[in-house]
């Protein structure tokens, strides 16, 4: 009896959750479907869901017009580079904040977060002028550094909250046993911190991948990532839904796939110390 009730509840849960999940996912699904239609079918009235002639035409057109791999490569380098660089800077900072806290630790953390609130467009000219001065316009390294700085507060904070959950007693016990700082870091802390670091990396990678102000305004050819790729397909003349959908699908597919495969890590590490 109880079991039947349970099954019934599970059934209802499943139905509701799937329905909501599909509604939320629908815009993405629709974009992917539209990318396989012809332009005429993309705006057909009433809309066609599956019964259209599937075509790869749009992908071919998009690829012919712009070299997708180059944009993709730049996105990977910029997002990946800024993530790695961010970790190199943030891990020691977060570590020290978590294990050697001082009175000012919290203030420093909050101050770091507040630097994220400056509106980017207000400093476009200053930053552009600095980049000219340094000769780093349209330069991937410059974007790696800038995106690292933009996301650094979030990384530090995420890592800090994660590290804080590692019980200090373990470290002390290790020290009692005569472990050096290096050993402590390598054999005790690192294994415990890996889930947090992994999800921090993922979140940062996603944020950097989707950043569309600096990556668009500071690049031209050599460093242009997928955000620039999209800007050449949004609202041109003529019918464009299908081509836009194809370009959009190409732009979000890599990160979507990465996100899906790693969603378990993302969920585990996204706690921001909220779970205690």
């Amino acid at each position: 009896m109880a079991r039947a009730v349970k099954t019934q509840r599970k059934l209802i849960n499943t139905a509701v959750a799937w329905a909501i999940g599909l509604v939320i996912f629908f815009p993405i699904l629709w974009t992917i479907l539209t990318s396989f239609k012809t332009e005429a079918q993309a705006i057909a009235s009433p809309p066609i869901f599956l019964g259209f002639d599937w075509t790869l035409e749009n992908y071919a057109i998009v690829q012919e017009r712009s070299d997708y791999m180059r944009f993709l490569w730049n996105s990977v380098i910029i997002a990946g580079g800024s993530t790695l660089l961010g970790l190199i800077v943030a891990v020691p900072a977060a570590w020290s904040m978590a294990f050697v806290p001082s009175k000012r630790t919290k203030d420093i953390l909050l101050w770091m977060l507040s630097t994220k609130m400056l509106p980017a467009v207000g400093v476009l000219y200053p930053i552009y002028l600095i980049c000219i001065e340094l000769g780093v316009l349209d330069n991937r390294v410059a974007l790696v550094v800038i995106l690292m700085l933009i996301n650094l507060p979030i990384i530090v904070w995420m890592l800090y909250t994660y590290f804080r959950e590692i019980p200090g007693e373990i470290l002390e016990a290790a020290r009692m046993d005569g472990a050096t700082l290096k050993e402590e870091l390598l054999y005790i802390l690192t294994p415990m911190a890996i889930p947090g670091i992994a999800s921090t990396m993922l979140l940062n990678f996603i944020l950097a991948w989707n950043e569309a102000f600096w990556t668009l305004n500071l690049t031209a050819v050599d460093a242009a990532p997928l955000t620039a790729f999209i800007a050449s397909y949004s609202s041109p003349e003529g019918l464009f839904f299908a081509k836009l959908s194809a370009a959009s699908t190409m732009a979000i597919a890599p990160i979507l796939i990465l996100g899906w495969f790693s969603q378990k890590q993302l969920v585990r590490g996204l706690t921001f110390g909220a779970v205690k």
Partner: protein
Amino acid sequence: MTMKHVLGATTALTLGATAVFADSHAKTITIATVNNGDMIRMQGYTDNFTEATGINVEWVTLEENVLRQRVTTDITTKGGQFDIMTIGMYETPIWGSNGWLVPLNGLSAEYDVDDILPAMRGGLSHDGTLYAAPFYGESSMVMYRTDLMEKAGLEMPSDPTWQFIREAAAAMDDPENDINGICLRGKAGWGEGGAFITVTGNSFGARWFDEEWNAQFDQPQWKAALEFYVNLMNDYGPEGYATNGFNENLSLFQQGKCGMWIDATVAASFVTNPNDSTVADSVGFALAPNSEGVEKRANWLWAWALAIPAGTQQEAEAKQFIEWATSKDYIELVAENEGWANVPPGARTSLYENPEYIKVPFAQMTLDSINAADPTDPTVDPVPYVGIQFVAIPEFAGMATEVSQEFSAAYAGQQSVDEALEKAQAIANEVMEAAGYK
């Protein structure tokens, strides 16, 4: 996929990535351009240019708004990111007068600079010096459905008035069959609805400023123009016209949902292209309308042109490209491969003397429309500015975008015409004052 894999993969990708450096720039020019059909087509022919000259071309193709933002930032700060920029008739004289563009002197005899349509040449020059070469040019005109006109028992004159346009819209409007009498731009933005309402104003005898740079939105001509537009569109326009720009209207017209559409002459080749348009063989053309008794028509003048920013390292190569892309030969090349209807229009006199081209149904009307527009004398009453659908001063783009946002809010019924005009007046005067005109 375990998290070790994720970590490993990301690390490997990044490390591998940093080892790759940008390739050298030997004889490569970088061109920023807008993602319009004719430019996309030009990109497709880049190989012909590279084969002939050995110069490589890198394209930065962006949506119009992003492009403007990008090239303006770059030119004002002398960023030097581009060797050629695609700009319009609004930017060219302002940038030219600031010394930011390379004067296009000394073009080859073969290029035949005198062949460029006088209106285009005038609009892309400052003090008699050409600063940008027109890739294509346009005016505005009426495009209408011949089949629907016939059904309505009306005949479109070659030079209609707004009053006739309203009558025709009423006759063609057919909500049951999903046909709107007329589709016009209402989208906020100086180059979108702002341009359209400005020429509409011109055709009702209105103007942006008097000769002392006082805003004129408190004058009856503006009220007449705006009220006419709003009534016309509310009665016979499509749902949500306040957010429709060129592109939205183009797809409506192509789907057969508009009886008439008054917009850029370049649209003619899209609406008559049977691949994209369901109404390709029943489109007629007429001059842009005027209000009865007003001598100015709602004709604008615009060119997308190629210019070289001063300070580029590749000036000679950039000039070579401009000569190629805006030449008579390029037009022939496109005609050969895609037919005469698809060549970039509105730039050269010789094109309109070509017996093959003049057979294209919209060719003559395009030329007539361009010739009917005079940027140096755009309005009935005298004005202190040059430009038809814009005022060629640096402050205009920002100001007109804000004004057109107020107008769009009136189109959407969020405020009255009077309120919109009042705000427009305040915005324009405020900007003029801040800029020191008064």
